[in-house]
């Protein structure tokens, strides 16, 4: 019990937990706050680790397996830490018709990882999306949260090289 209390204090001290705790409080710690809370955790930490899932389950009085089941049901949530940069290639219908699979293949070849993976140096995560609603600009790619429309394989590779060489 004491250990639990200590953990709670530690948690309170961390600024990033404030958003999470605030979200739960806003919803009165009701079970239906779960998805909103997981969004808050992911926004604060970039991903959902087992400790935060445990903390959320404990705070909302939900079974651990239920929390894990919800976290893995929704593809927006990720349980793995993302890379420093992210590249999301849209595989929605319009982008698919416009040849986004070729871009994906080019990127896979360039960085040597498959969608959902992060390069071994933790620099880049490659992801795919099911339509971001930018079909008018197909094919679309999101680099670090910014949508780029009408992309091509060459343009994507250029952007990726720029991202990877930017910091050092």
């Amino acid at each position, binding site marked *: 019990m004491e250990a639990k209390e200590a953990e709670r204090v530690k948690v309170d001290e961390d600024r990033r937990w404030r958003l999470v705790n605030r979200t739960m409080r806003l919803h009165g710690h*009701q*079970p*239906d*706050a*779960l*998805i*909103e809370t*997981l*969004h808050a955790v992911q926004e604060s930490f970039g991903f959902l680790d087992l400790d935060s899932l445990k903390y959320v389950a404990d705070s909302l009085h939900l079974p651990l397996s*239920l929390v894990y*089941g*919800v976290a893995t*049901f*929704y*593809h*927006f*949530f990720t349980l793995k830490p993302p890379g420093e940069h992210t590249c999301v290639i849209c*595989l*929605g*219908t*319009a982008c*698919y*018709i*416009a040849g986004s*699979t070729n871009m*994906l*293949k080019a990127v896979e070849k360039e960085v040597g990882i498959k969608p959902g993976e992060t390069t071994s140096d933790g620099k880049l995560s490659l992801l795919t*999306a*099911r*339509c*971001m*609603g*930018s*079909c*008018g*600009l*197909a094919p*679309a790619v999101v680099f670090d949260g*910014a*949508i*780029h*429309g009408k992309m091509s394989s060459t343009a994507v590779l250029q952007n990726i090289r720029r991202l990877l060489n930017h910091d050092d």
Partner: protein
Amino acid sequence: MTIEELQEIGKIEKEKQDGFKHRIHVCVAAGCLSCQSGQVKEALEKEVSRRGQESWTSVKGVGCLGLCTAGPMVAIEPDGILYQGVSVSDASDILEALGGPAVSRLDCSAHMPFFTKQKKIVLENCGKIDPESIEDYIAEGGYEGLYNALRIMTPTGVIEQISKGGLRGRGGAGFPTGLKWTAVSKTKSNIKFVVCNADEGDPGAFMDRSVLESDPHRVLEGMAIAGFAVGANYGFIYVRAEYPLAVKRVRTAIARAERLGVLGRNIFNTTFNFDITVRLGAGAFVCGEETALIASIEGRRGSPRPRPPFPSELGLWGYPTLINNVETFANVPPIIRKGGDWFAATGTDKSKGTKVFALAGRVNNTGLIEAPMGTKLREIVFDIGGGILEGRKFKAVQTGGPSGGCIPEQFLDMSMDYESLAKVGSIMGSGGLIVMDETSCMVDVAKFFIEFCMSESCGKCVPCRVGTVQIYNVLKRITEGKGKPTDIGLLEELCDLVKNTSLCGLGQTAPNPVLSTLNYFMDEYRAHIDDKVCPAGTCHFNHTEESQ
């Protein structure tokens, strides 16, 4: 608040705007923002102040102007000039040309069929008003419908107008909205909910996103009117987390509306209270299904449950719940303001009003369009859409996303309404229209959609969970040139099984893209299987790493 106060707000805003000799509207919806329209707006503002003409020139961010492919879009009012592909360096030229002829290199004729063939009800304010300004919305007659409903009409009267207007659900199936509202209003309960389904998971559709980003108050007003009509005091908007801008604008809109008193307690000095909360989706297509959406709002896995009981009896937390799509709610305020008869005057016999389509794929003009129900498919593709890219040959239009079908050339002159689309084996769906030309392989398209359904299946019922994998595997081997002659029969059998025995709409409609391509493009399947040739040249058969 009284109607006079509301009209006063609108009048002041109108006068303020009319005070400017030139009004520059910059599209700040997601499509144009990703082409740096934010910076264009800033540059224009800077240029205006540099020239010291703030008193007679205004720069305003507005919602989607429609032609997303030509972004960033800038409109000059009241001259009606439209610029496309504007960049930061064009700011001074645009200001120079104010009052005179348009800058010719940027000019985008507002008289092209893309604009003139459309009829706007849902999108009437898109590209006109600042989505973050409630005053702007009120100046265009906003919240008058809510006032009329609350102060002049009765709940039954509201539903009567909706029924008279013949409005049908814009989320896909086209269920009459009036009937749905009646069902919820008749269920006795002192707590009811109104839910707006903005979980636009259909790949290739972005109507709901654009409406929420361009005119969020319209949806809030529609929900409040619905709440009054069915006797609900709580509303939820379930928005995809993938639409951060839409989420932000809706949250802003709710806050502004509450501050002004058009949402919250005692709206327009009546006893009616209505609160709206935003809930974020988290990337699950199946949550567009009513019962899965309810589960998701309750914080659970988005698995559908068998219906009946329908949400109108047993919805959120066991209470009667009305669930409508964004576009459906967006149609409500004008119907209440102008009457059901006015709305029913547009459209066909059974499908009234207009439909917003997200036009994308291999057409020249991609973007957001709105056309009356019953518009010919040919007009949409060739007049509004401006024909096929690079002058290629039209092959098919995919409507309804993963639940819809592919419509071949022979039906180009069909009327776009619920019944006609169902007749050719597709559905209206939420309004995604993907145009395909001869470079698109229809077997590959079918594979694409079934792969989508396979990974979006919630895994609850067996036919959908396993059947979609089986269909995908068969299509995969056909596109790899390993198809067997018996595969066509196998596909038909599996599709029939999944369609007839799945639990929810996702599974029941998942085989549609396969069935419709089998129906209209059998020769392509045959070419893949018998001759090991892909007529469109998309599939590669030489055992490389093709087809993910």
